[in-house]
């Protein structure tokens, strides 16, 4: 709980804060890169704990299906509600199917599912690794000659990346279902017209752009959440802080990855 500082203090503190921010950023990027290197080393040759991998696939993937489905369905609906006035004005009912699929595949699906996945799975992962860290369980693994990166991190990272892609495909489908339903109810667009316009104009590439994005987001979230989890220090408040930092860093990472991939993948 910081006290409100005087405006002058804030102004003077700004350069200092930007500096501190850049320093922290450099540390974190360095830490994440080192973690990535350590993971890649363990993948060649691949020695993956199968049991841990399947446990995480289930926990992170299957358990996320309800929230992803609900979010996607609502988002599909919202998309059409927002577009509805324009569709009516320009009499573009023949285009709505294409507009909805294009937006969902290329942008909305991966981004939204990335954000929810970050909140649900990424935060969770940081909390779990962080708790293991502050209760000395990670050191206990080391003492038992078990490599924490190979045992804890690699299966989680693989599970998160693959599940992010799979959940994006599922989310895309459900969002389009929601969009189709809303278009039918609100704008009287026949589902057949909806799909016809999508198939006519959509390119396969649009779909793959989204998948590549979701893969990138998965990598971001997986690396960040493991990094912050293992870097946790300082008891219960430390775990809270780590989760907080991880969620925010992953969200920023997702937006930045989205920005660059949007331009590169065009």
């Amino acid at each position, binding site marked *: 709980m910081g006290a*409100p500082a005087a405006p002058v203090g804030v102004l003077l503190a700004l350069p200092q804060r930007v500096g501190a921010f850049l320093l922290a950023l450099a540390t974190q990027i360095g830490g994440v890169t080192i973690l990535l290197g350590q993971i890649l080393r363990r993948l060649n040759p691949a020695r993956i704990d199968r049991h841990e991998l399947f446990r995480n696939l289930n926990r992170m993937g299957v358990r996320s299906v309800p929230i992803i489905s609900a979010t996607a369905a609502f988002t599909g609906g919202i998309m059409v509600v927002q577009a509805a006035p324009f569709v009516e004005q320009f009499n573009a009912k023949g285009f709505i199917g294409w507009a909805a699929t294009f937006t969902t595949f290329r942008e909305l699906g991966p981004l939204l599912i990335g954000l929810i996945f970050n909140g649900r799975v990424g935060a969770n992962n940081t909390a779990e690794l962080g708790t293991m860290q502050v209760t000395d369980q990670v050191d206990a693994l080391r003492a038992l000659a078990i490599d924490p990166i190979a045992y804890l991190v690699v299966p989680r990272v693989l599970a998160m990346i693959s599940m992010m892609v799979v959940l994006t495909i599922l989310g895309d489908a459900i969002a389009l279902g929601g969009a189709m339903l809303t278009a039918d109810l609100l704008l009287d667009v026949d589902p057949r017209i909806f799909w016809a316009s999508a198939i006519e104009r959509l390119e396969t590439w649009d779909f793959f752009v989204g998948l590549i994005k979701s893969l990138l987001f998965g990598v971001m979230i997986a690396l960040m959440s493991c990094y912050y989890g293992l870097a946790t220090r300082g008891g219960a408040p430390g775990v809270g802080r780590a989760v907080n930092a991880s969620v925010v860093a992953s969200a920023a990472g997702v937006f930045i990855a989205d920005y660059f991939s949007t331009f590169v993948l065009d």
Partner: protein
Amino acid sequence: MAFTARAENVSPLAALKNVLQDALAVARVGRRTMHYLIRGKREPGSVARQMFAIGNQSLFFMCITMAFIGAIITFQTGLQSKKLVPDFSMIGATYLKLLIRDLAASVGALPLATRVGAGIAAEIGSMVVTEQVDALRMCAADPVDYLVVPRFIASVIMGTVILIIGGFVAYGSGMLVAQLMFDVSPHTFTNLSLVTMGDLVLGVSKAVTYGGAIALVSGQRGLATFGGSEGVGWATTEAVVGSCFAIIVLNLVISTIGYFFVPAL
């Protein structure tokens, strides 16, 4: 919270039941918040402190995020309209309208919820597991009154302010992308002709609602924390997911009301 159920196995039916129970729990906290909003004993400075905390935590983050979002949306819209009508004269006007009516509030609210919601839940959750909340209750300080209400007020006010600032930033970055990628001059891009008073009202009421929802969901999750340091981590997760979900549901509700009562064109 059902979506983030700690148990490894939860049937879909039980999950649905949990969602409803959580929604009820949040509603109860909401009712008590309203009660104390009118009757409560405000500690002087507590709201200002929370407003500062929220602003301090999230303004920088939100500006960066919204700059990227604005660039992405403009780029995607440009791509899309290039295929339909290769005419960019209205892209700025349409973008501005959408931004005000929905995107600035609804898209911005997700990263805002991530930042502010996680902060609220982690802070209150740590107080729960260290028994500070019990100590508060022993001093006739209802935790809803003492902890949630100031955060609620601060989140409504600061959340709205930050979402509006974020909207400006997104508009600016959109303008930049329009100029660089589609050769739309800032002059053409800055076009207020499509914006109505209704859009403004709709956008601001969304921002206000989201600000309140983030504080209530995250406050409730924080107060419901149990189980030591791991519990704080869980509460934080649940606050982020719960707030995002609440925002999406509220968006659909408000947007649908807006469609019928605040005609867009």
